[in-house]
Every structure is written in C-alpha cells, then in structure tokens.
C-alpha cells in the first residue's frame, strides 16, 4: 500500500484523489465546528445527486458547462496561458447560440450543429482579442481577459434586450430545433432538465485530448507554453500559436455557454453579474490535472457539489459549506507538490 502511494507513477491520480479526500475531510471538520453532523450532511449531498432520477439528471446538467470551462482553462494552461476570460467567452458563446437559435430556421440536424458552432466561434473571437494583444504587444492575457469579462457581461446584457421580443430580463425562446433539450432524456429522468449537452462535453474532452496529445499542432502549442524562445528558435510560429491557443480555449468556453443557454434554459438571460462558471472552470482544470479525461471527472465532482447544494440546504447544511469544500479541494490540488513530498516520505520514517 505504502509502496503504491510512494510510487511516483501513481501520483498522477493519487494526488487529485487525496486532494478531494482532504477537501471532504476539511469540510467535515467545518461542519462539526458549526454543529452539523457531517455524516448527515454528506448523506444529503449523495442523496441530492443520485437520490432520484431527476436529481441524477440535474447532476449532469450542472456538470456539462463546468466540464467545458474546465477544458477551456486547461487548454490555456497546457499552452502556457492563463485564461481567466472563460467567463466572458461563455457569455458571448451563450448569446451567439441563442441568436442563431432564434433567427435561423432550418431542420434540427443542421440547426443544432450550427448553434453549437456559432457559440464556439463567438467564444473563439472573444479569446482572439487577448491572444492577439499578447502575441503582438506582449499585453498580459490575465489583465485583458478580466476586462473582457466585464465587457462581455454588459455588452451582451444590452444586446439581449435589443433582440426583438426580449423583455428587460430575457430573450424569447429559441426554436425547438435549436435546443439541446430532449423529451426522451427528460422523461427517463423524471422531468429533469437533462439535455444532450453532456455527450457534447465528453466529445469536447476527446477533441481536447486529441489536439493536445496526438497532433503536431498540439505539440507545438505545448512547446510554446513550455518555452516560447526555444520554440521560436526551433522554427515555430510562436505568435500565431498564442493566438490560436486563446481562440481554442475561448471556443471551449463558448460551448459552455451554449450548454447553459440552449441546454438548461432555452433562452438568453440578462444577468446582473457573472455566474462563476469560468472561475469554477479554473478549479476544475486544476483538479483535473489539465488533462481531457480527468477534467470530465473533476467537472462531474464540482457539478455534484453544485447540484447537491439544494438537498444539503434541505438537510439544514448551509450552501456555503459546499463552497468551502470546493475551495479546500482546490487548495489541496494546488498544493500537489506538498502532497507529493508527503507521499514520497511515507514509510521512510519507519525504516
């Protein structure tokens, strides 16, 4: 057992698992301090996620956008960019999806791909700006993406209200052919909002993995991330690659927006402030080790904490506990070096 934990080959998945475990333990301690029985709290969480078919469906609904924002942030990380702008790219993506969903009237098998594509393109365009500024003028992407988040929020709020038929808070419904929602999925999960987005998120993870691990292009992107100077010396087009990374990262975030606007809601909403999917994406990416398939799992985990929060509230566990657990998991995931050191030392003292 100890040898297994000490073996560095296993650290790739042992460390995230331990982060999660520690996160839940820390959450349990907080619950004890605030006078809540942690066993009951966690039982409520589990019940809130798999307690009945509807909750099970809602779990997937909550997870899909998180997987996409996780992929978005991870793509940036893998190529040496810190994309804080997933939030804004998500907002423009969700809006583009709705616009195409309302105004283009074609059969579903064309419409749906078109809707998703426009969300990805919109997100990519929003990612292009910081990518371009970074490549051309060395403006740090963190600064630009943060500003772009606010621009997206307010610009899109304005644009939604300007659409014909919109009220001050929402747009009209999209055409049924543009919606990811499915009568069938909703029925088998007892009227949950479960939609096809989840499959698309899994597909997104596969695409992510393929680009990063299996193509020359992905290799170049990673190489630029590791060392731009060396990559340039090796003959790679560094600037072009930075822009393309930001755009692909933005495309993933744009798709996350489509999950929400044409999956969960079927209309665009005027929101007062960012809803945090982009920032949660940073956590998802961190915990998922920036690798495509692990991000599905970490996205599902954070989705569970989100989806289970109403059931936890019913068991009188404040929703903040869920946030605290998330925060602890991220904290431990960020401390992975320390955990690795700890694992490597395990058993040494006995000798």
């Amino acid at each position, binding site marked *: 057992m100890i040898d297994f934990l000490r073996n560095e080959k296993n650290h790739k998945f042992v460390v995230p698992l331990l982060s999660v475990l520690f996160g839940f333990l820390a959450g349990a301690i907080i619950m004890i301090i605030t006078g809540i029985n942690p066993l009951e709290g966690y039982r409520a969480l589990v019940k809130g996620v798999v307690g009945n078919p509807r909750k099970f469906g809602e779990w997937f609904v909550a997870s899909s956008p998180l997987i996409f924002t996780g992929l978005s942030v991870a793509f940036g990380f893998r190529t040496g960019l810190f994309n804080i702008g997933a939030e804004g790219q998500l907002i423009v993506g969700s809006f583009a999806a709705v616009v195409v969903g309302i105004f283009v009237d074609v059969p579903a098998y064309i419409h749906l791909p078109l809707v998703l594509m426009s969300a990805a393109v919109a997100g990519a365009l929003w990612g292009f700006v910081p990518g371009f500024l970074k490549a051309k003028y060395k403006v740090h992407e963190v600064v630009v993406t943060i500003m772009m988040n606010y621009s997206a929020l307010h610009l899109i709020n304005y644009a939604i209200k300007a659409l014909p038929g919109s009220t001050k*808070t929402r747009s009209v419904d999209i055409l049924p052919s543009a919606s990811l929602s499915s009568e069938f999925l909703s029925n088998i999960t007892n009227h949950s909002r479960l939609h096809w987005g989840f499959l698309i998120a899994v597909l997104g993870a596969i695409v992510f993995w393929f680009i990063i691990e299996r193509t020359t292009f992905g290799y170049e992107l990673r190489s630029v991330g590791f060392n731009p100077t060396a990559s340039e010396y090796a003959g790679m087009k560094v600037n072009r690659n930075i822009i393309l990374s930001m755009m692909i990262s933005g495309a993933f975030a744009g798709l996350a927006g489509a999950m929400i606007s044409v999956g969960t809601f079927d209309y665009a*909403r005027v929101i007062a402030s960012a809803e945090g999917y982009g920032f949660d994406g940073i956590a998802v990416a961190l915990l998922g080790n920036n690798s495509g398939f692990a991000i599905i799992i970490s996205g599902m985990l954070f989705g569970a904490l989100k989806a289970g929060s*109403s059931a936890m509230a019913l068991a009188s566990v404040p*929703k903040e506990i869920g946030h605290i657990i998330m925060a602890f998991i991220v904290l431990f995931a960020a401390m992975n070096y320390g955990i690795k050191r700890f694992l490597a030392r395990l058993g040494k003292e006995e000798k």
Partner: protein
Amino acid sequence: MKKALSLLLVSILVIGLLAGCAEKYSEDVSFRVGFVTDTGGIDDKSFNQGTWEGVQKYAEENKWKEGRQYKYIQSNEEADYIPNLSAFGDDNYNIVIAAGFLFGDSMTEVAPQYPDTNFTIIDMVVAQPNVASVVFAEEQGSFLVGVAAARATKTKKVGFIGGVDFDLIRKFHAGFAAGVHSVDPTIEVIDQYAGDFGNPGLGQQIASTMYDQGVDVIYHAAGGTGNGAINEAKGRRENGEDVWVIGVDKDQYEDGKMADGKSAVLTSMMKRVDVAAYNMIQAAKDGKFPGGEIIALTLADDGVGIPEENPNLDKAVVKEIEDYKKKIVAGEIKVPATMDELADFIK
C-alpha cells in the same frame, strides 16, 4: 497541540448536546412550509427577508422548529431555481413559497409536476391550478412616500433609484413621481436605474452623485443596492447635511439609524410580503388555498403603505398622507402604474 485540539472537539460536542436538550417545539410534521430565495439571499433586508419573516411569524405562533416544519433554500444563481423548487416538491412539502417575478418561468415549469403541493409566487402571475399569485399595488404606496418626499425637500429636487429597469420597478417610479407632482408640480424628480439589486457599493455611488447634484430626498426601490443609498444618507446626515432617504419593501427606519439614535430614513414604502406569506400559509393550512387565483394587495387591504410609526415625519404631513390614502382608496385619485400613465397624470 493534539490535547488542545481534542479538548476543543470534546467541548464542541458537549455544547452541542446541551443545546439539543431544550425542546419546546411541536413534533407534528404533517404540514411543512418551504421557501426559496432568489439570488439576493435570505438576508437582503428587503424582499426575501420580508417574506421569510412572514413564514417565521406563522412558525413562531405554531411553535414550529426551523428545519422541521419550515425551511428555506437559497439560490446561488438562476439555474438553481428549478432544482430548489423541485427539492421541496420531492420532499412533499405542503406549501412552497418563492418571492420575485424571476421565479415566473421556473414556477410554471415545476408546479405541474407536483399537483399536491401548493405553490405561492409573489410579484408575478403564474397561471397554474396549484399556484397562488400575490401582486401588490406598489404605485399606490409609492404615491404616499412621494407626498412625504415633496413635503421634505427644500431644494425642490428629489431622486429615485431603481434596481433594474423593468415594468415592476417602473410602478414604484411612476407612483412616486405622481405623488411628488400632486403636492408641488415644480419639484424635479431625477431617476437612475442601477441595473442590479445586489450591489450596495453602486447604490451608494448613485446616491452620492444625486445628493451632490442638489437632490435632498431619495426614494430607492433597489433591494440590496438601495442599502448603499441608505448608508450614504446616514453618512451625510452625520456630517450635518440635511438629506433624507426613503426605504422600500420593509420599514427600513432601523437600517438608517445613526450614532445619535435618530434615523436618516424619512419613511418607508412598505410592501407587506410578510402578510402575503403568512396569509397563504394560513389558507393552505385551512384547506382554503387560493390555487390558480391572483391576489392583489392594495392600499385598501393595507398590503402597501407607510409604517405606523414615522418619527421623522411631521404630524401634518402624516395627516396629509392619510388624506391622500383615503382618496386613492375611494378611487378619486387613480395612481399611474406605468411611465405612459404618469405622463398623462402630469398633464
């Protein structure tokens, strides 16, 4: 270190046990009430809090224990509304209350799935057989505080801060402006919409700008954002400026209290969401739940109005407000509820 930690844990456990001993609550759980907040949260000092107070009042009178017979769930974001409403439905709660028109879509979707649960929505009409919709005549109450503002202003400039610019908040706006106009048509009403109900910093900034422009009474219909306006008024009054703010939804007199015990809140436009919640629970308990109906609470029902105690208003002004109230109740004054009606009213 370890000892200290275990001591701490043990003492927490012991305190928990002691606290668990006192039991004076009803054991009967055959009737349960659920409340879902919008993203403003349970302690927004406004809408959600007010509704929750109505639930709490009913609970206290019936010796209910929070978590057993009544409970609330906070919504972090709009995507939570449906799961949160459904959570109570799944648990077979008898009545589920949600405050705010933002719940309109989600309530329409959730209510048919739980035909045995009574739903109540406040500020919005949802046409479902098991949903009771409670709406208020906000323009009438706002008219009355408009009269108070017109009597209080010395600069002949009053301000209105709206949360988000939509029809409901325009009702406050139109009623207020009409009230001001009825007293003195030369008083100017300046308005600004914050675009957010949960941003006190922004509210304070808007209020500050208005006061700097010479406005000396501000009426806010902006929930949490308006708390910033109250803060600004408080700060300025403490510095000797003669400015006022008018509260909304609840009696906000306490929120505007300064170091000397007086308040910067002139009066408040009370919207008795607590009464609405209380009445609906009572009705559901008695088996007389008005499912599918629209319940309109007006000045005549005391569903809106000013607080009973108004330490900052002169007796004469209170009397004048009472007179206007009678006229509105009698139908002699028809208070405008939209900006178009306001334009006609002013003509």
